[in-house]
């Protein structure tokens, strides 16, 4: 059976959820072989094996943390040359897409980004993409070389599928370009204790109607009652009420959770582009004409300052 390379997104050995989703998709095409780089790479093997990795290729070097993107491209290229895979899968993070693109160019292969589904096909893997602010769905293939495909978080379920997960050292020699862009400082983001926006099963967002940074406490309280991530519309971010890292929409994150709760968000195309593929959408907005209501499974026309606290209380009561 053909092998499929899966690039592992991890933080000091803790594998991020989208990588486990990639393993689910990789198993539809062939046998997953994971590539884990940098500090803690070997620690990823256990969880990767539980989710279907037959092999885990690891390599650690200081270059991965000290220089931007290119050392990882060098390593992934070495893995492609060692394995001759049927496809290479990478999570659609900003860095993931950059790594995938440079790899594709180097190995003379086509690239598809932001797939939301992947299946085996007669002429190689078929990727589904959601385009034009999710108003269209396309099916595409790579027609040259080894398909390099990046997949958006929440595109597949995480499934246990125990496999050998044999750890092997990957041999990597860095290119001249590897040390071109130095990372001279790194400030870790303060943890909010909430799930990662793009990975969360539930996202609670606030927009212009929240009317002030201090009022986001209401949105956060609702999110916490559901164990959800907090998002914000561009209007709220531009107004300085919430950090840009949490922006949902065209120029922010694109999310596809099981449940999306939009509060005080009108639903401009900018915003819809980032949330329209959510499974269930609900909204609270005082304007009955707001375009967000065209998308919802359930909507409440009303003042979010009344509705949201009542909703939060009711959820807490029901959860006991």
């Amino acid at each position, binding site marked *: 059976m053909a092998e499929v390379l899966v690039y592992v997104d991890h*933080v000091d050995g803790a594998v991020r959820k989208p990588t486990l989703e990639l393993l689910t998709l990789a198993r539809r095409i062939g046998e997953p072989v994971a590539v884990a780089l940098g500090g803690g790479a070997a620690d990823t093997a256990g969880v990767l094996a539980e989710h279907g990795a037959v092999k885990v290729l690891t390599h650690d070097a200081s270059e991965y943390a000290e220089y*931007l*993107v290119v050392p990882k491209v060098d390593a992934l290229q070495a893995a492609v040359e060692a394995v001759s895979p049927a496809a290479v899968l990478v999570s659609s*993070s*900003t*860095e993931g897409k950059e790594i*995938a*693109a440079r790899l*594709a160019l180097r190995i003379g292969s*086509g*690239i598809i*980004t*932001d797939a939301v589904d992947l299946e085996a096909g007669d002429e190689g893997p078929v990727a589904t993409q959601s*385009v034009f*602010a999710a*108003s*269209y*769905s*396309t*099916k*595409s*293939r790579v*027609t*040259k070389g080894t398909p390099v495909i990046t997949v958006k978080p929440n595109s597949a379920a995480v499934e246990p599928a125990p496999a050998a997960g044999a750890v092997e050292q990957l041999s990597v020699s860095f290119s001249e*370009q590897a040390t*071109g*862009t*130095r990372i*001279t400082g*790194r*400030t*870790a983001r303060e943890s909010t204790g909430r799930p990662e926006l793009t990975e969360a099963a539930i996202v609670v967002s606030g927009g212009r109607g929240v009317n002030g940074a201090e009022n986001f406490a209401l949105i956060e309280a609702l999110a916490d009652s*559901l164990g959800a991530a907090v998002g914000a519309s561009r209007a709220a971010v531009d107004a300085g009420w919430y950090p*840009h*890292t949490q922006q949902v929409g*065209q*120029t922010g994150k694109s999310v596809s959770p099981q*449940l999306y709760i939009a509060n005080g968000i009108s639903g401009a*195309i*900018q915003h819809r582009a980032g949330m329209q593929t959510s499974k*269930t959408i*609900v909204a*609270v907005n005082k304007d*009955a004409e707001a375009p967000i*209501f065209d*998308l*919802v*499974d*359930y*909507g*409440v*026309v009303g003042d979010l300052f*009344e*509705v949201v*606290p*009542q909703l*939060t209380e*009711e*959820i807490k009561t*029901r959860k006991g």
Partner: protein
Amino acid sequence: MSLRIVVTVKYVPDATGDRHFAEDLTVDRDDVDGLLSELDEYAVEQALQISENSDDDVEITVLTVGPEDAKDALRKALSMGADKAVHIEDDDLHGTDAIGTSLVLAKAIEKAGYDLVISGMSSTDGSMGVVPALLAERLGVPQVTLLSEVSVEDGTVKGRRDGDAASEQLEAALPAVVSVTDQSGEARYPSFKGIMAAKKKPVQSWDLSDLDIDADEVGLENAWTKVDSAAERPARTAGTIVKDEGEGGRQLAEFLASQKFI
């Protein structure tokens, strides 16, 4: 000292229009009004700011690949303050994918001459966000991408890249490829004076032969990926909408419970 900045820009269908596909499954660029991709305005803005903050002699060239109408995007960038423009147009370019586009841009950037390339974080139509990385790979120069802050001093470009897990300070020697995000600073509006001045600024036109690119390296037939089908997403079925009369929050909770979210 002089500093040659090349800003790559894209002419895209207006996202607020009714965007769709042409029969050959390329983006239909005829039926919807086009404009300079909003995210590229930030790249033009940062080029202008680098120029304004520099003691060097800075020359800003804006570059685009696209049909005749794409000149509108160049004109907008020139009216914001860029010095000159290059328009790459060739019938054989229709349907070129990101890998092919990066080839055309890289050849044109080399032909134009550069110390610094500045791009937006992604286009607003294809929105792959991979062209800056591809340009760095093709040009063999450092990639300093997705910056929310950028500065150039003594032949070095520095910037801040805000990732999900951390904010990173980056540094590279010129020549380099930079991309900037929408957090890098509001783009200026062209002034009346700028709009008038732009009319006199030079716009060069190049085709594939000017760039020594063969027709079989680009275009829809030679793309390394193929779109097999495109289907309009079915409209979401109309949901239940209630007016809050004091029970809205509890009604919503009831709905969430019925869907097993609580």
